[in-house]
């Protein structure tokens, strides 16, 4: 990024921060803050200034207005001494934070367009919200949903009841969402008559609904297709698949299954595990479950401040209502800059659809774009200000 470009982008951020209604998190004074500034090294060398602390919302907002940072973060944790070095902060608790990012969800990012990635990650966020409201019993008002300003969503939960959870406890919550360590047997009970009873609660309910849905689908398919689909889901042989079809088409048996009894299924464990596997795959939340990259279990991590700007996209880290997510379009709703003309020199091919308009840039050309698109491309590092 050339110096003129950086100055221009920085000035844009400053204008935003001077007018925006910033929404600092609760307990500002107990949090650690971290910033990346548009300094002379940016963005070649990104220096995160951590361990900052502010006494009040006003102090924080003044700081942000003065520096207009490229990136602004605060700790999920609250500390007694937030500005002290890590070992001496005295951890008092931490918000429960979920960080869903496209690169945790798909491994081959290049294959997808930015728009598609945003759709994918939105679906995961919706599943996650479903878990939080139904299984975990949170109210919508407990969840603060935020578009990350880039390729994902964050959910902050600040309720006192979760603040004291340690990182192993948080890991259990992640495991729940991702169905890690799920054991089907945990939801099966042997009834006195030798049949199995499915406990339809928690994951048991999801497995149960999945099983019913699967069997209904099978019953409606022509025999040959049904066999193929069963074999694909469960990996069993033709004869076993036929047994399943017989069950699916038998109304009395189906009625009993729908009331929670699984007749004869002990003879067909593969059905059960196979169906469970496919249900799990579709309804669990895909997430960065890599042990080297803990998500919500890291109780000392920093998270982007809602209402700040993302320095690599110029988009707003935008809070939104839970029921607004379905219609939320980050490439429209998180755009904050205006549409005056800006002239750019394109350094790399790139394209984006912003505010419903498609912009396709080719390396070497000079283009005039509305400010919001120009800011996006400059922040991405694919274009320089033409002076």
């Amino acid at each position, binding site marked *: 990024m050339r110096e003129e470009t950086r100055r221009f982008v920085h000035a844009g951020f400053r204008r935003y921060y001077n007018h925006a209604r910033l929404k600092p998190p609760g307990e500002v004074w107990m949090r650690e803050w971290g910033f990346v500034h548009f300094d002379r090294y940016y963005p070649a060398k990104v220096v995160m200034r951590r361990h900052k602390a502010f006494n009040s919302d006003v102090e924080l907002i003044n700081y942000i207005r003065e520096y207009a940072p490229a990136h602004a973060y605060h700790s999920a944790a609250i500390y007694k001494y937030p500005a002290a070095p890590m070992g001496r902060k005295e951890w008092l608790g931490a918000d429960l934070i979920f960080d869903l990012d496209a690169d945790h969800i798909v491994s081959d990012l290049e294959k997808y367009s930015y728009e598609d990635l945003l759709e994918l990650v939105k679906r995961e966020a919706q599943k996650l919200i479903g878990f939080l409201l*139904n*299984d*975990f*019993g*949170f109210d919508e008002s407990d969840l603060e949903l935020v578009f990350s300003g880039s390729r994902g969503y964050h959910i902050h939960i600040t309720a006192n*009841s*979760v603040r*004291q*959870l*340690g990182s*192993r*406890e948080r890991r*259990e*919550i992640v*495991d*729940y969402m991702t*169905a*890690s*360590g*799920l*054991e089907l047997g*945990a*939801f099966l009970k042997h009834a006195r008559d030798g049949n199995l009873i499915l*406990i339809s*609660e*928690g*994951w*048991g309910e999801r497995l149960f609904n999945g099983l019913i849905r699967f069997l209904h689908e099978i019953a409606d398919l022509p025999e040959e297709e049904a066999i193929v689909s069963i074999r694909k889901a469960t990996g069993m042989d033709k004869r076993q698949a036929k047994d399943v079809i017989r069950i699916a088409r038998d109304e009395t048996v189906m009625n009993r299954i729908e009331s929670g009894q699984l007749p004869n299924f002990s003879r067909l464990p593969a059905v059960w595990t196979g169906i469970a596997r496919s249900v799990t795959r579709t309804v669990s939340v895909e997430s960065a479950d890599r*042990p*080297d990259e803990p998500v919500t279990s890291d109780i000392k991590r920093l998270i982007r401040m809602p209402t700040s700007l993302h320095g690599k996209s110029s988009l707003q880290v935008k809070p939104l209502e839970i029921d607004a997510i379905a219609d939320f379009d980050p490439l429209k709703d998180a755009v904050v800059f205006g549409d005056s003309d800006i002239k750019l020199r394109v350094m790399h091919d790139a394209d984006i659809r912003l505010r419903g308009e498609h912009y396709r840039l080719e390396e070497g050309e000079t283009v005039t774009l509305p400010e919001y698109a120009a800011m996006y491309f400059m922040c991405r590092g694919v274009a320089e200000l033409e002076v």
Partner: protein
Amino acid sequence: MHERYSYLCLYPFLPAASEYVKESGLTIDHMISSASARIRAKERVIEAIRTGCVQRPFIADDMQAQMELLSYPFARILVSCINDPYLVRRYALAEAKGAYRRIIEDLNTGTGMDTIHKLAGDLGIHADISTDHVLVPFTDYLQLAVNLRDKRWKLVNRSLVRGKVKLNVNEFVRLLQEAIYGRVIKGLPLDVPEEICNSLRAHIEQIKEELARGRPKRDEFRAHSGADPDSFPPCIRNILRNLNEGVNIPHSARFAVTAFLLNAGLSVEEVIELYRNSPDFNETMTRYQVEHIAGVRSGTRYTAPSCATMRTYGNCVGKDELCDRIAHPLSYYRLKLKRRAKKPDS
């Protein structure tokens, strides 16, 4: 006998119990001069070492109740004077188990539900208790179940509905045991003035002897197995040290150390012996797991995890310079054995 009193003396770790002791005006001096409470305290600790469970006695009268009540803070003092991490854990676990058994007995005789209600309240656990199940907010559940390793305790395998985990009554009592363990171990070892420890020397010596008897020795380990623990890599030595001190270690570490030792030539029996010190040792479970890793049934023995895997799970602890030359803990062991064979006294 006063009802509250007989309850508190069975669960002397409750805050209300220490309140009671305080209110009754009894001081440490009283305790030390109360020979019967002193002896009962020593019994508590010795029983913990021997059987892993401090049984609740039948309480005949107020006198005995008082002794029982006083012996608990006293036992904590004894444990603290010895100040051995293994003993601290073992003792706390044995107190918790003793309480657990007593509650289960009460359940069988029909008075248990009452106790459970009271204990949950006194231990600050939010629970909705009815005769056929107990509902616990998931946050309380997670904090209580976090050390339980069996898969059925994982949250993902529980009935979780609108923020509440549904448990049967016995499962809930198991969680009470966890809460009690946490309560007992909190603050241990206490900071006991030296004069007090000195005045208790006779008891302490007895406990120490018992302790030495109960604990497998490092040298025996070497003699039996033919393995050379001094040549083990730092990660494995660290896990073994934790096991020896009765620290509850994560699954991944158990797997690593078991597979490593089996690969290094230890027998299934020898490996099981190592786990005997674990505060929650369960022979059947341990045997099953060790045999599984050894491939007794399947015929395929698991290989010990590589350094990369050890690192991923946070089990690579104490890396030394020899570690830079290898990528697998077993290679470390082989290399070290070779070196030691060359320089016998290094």
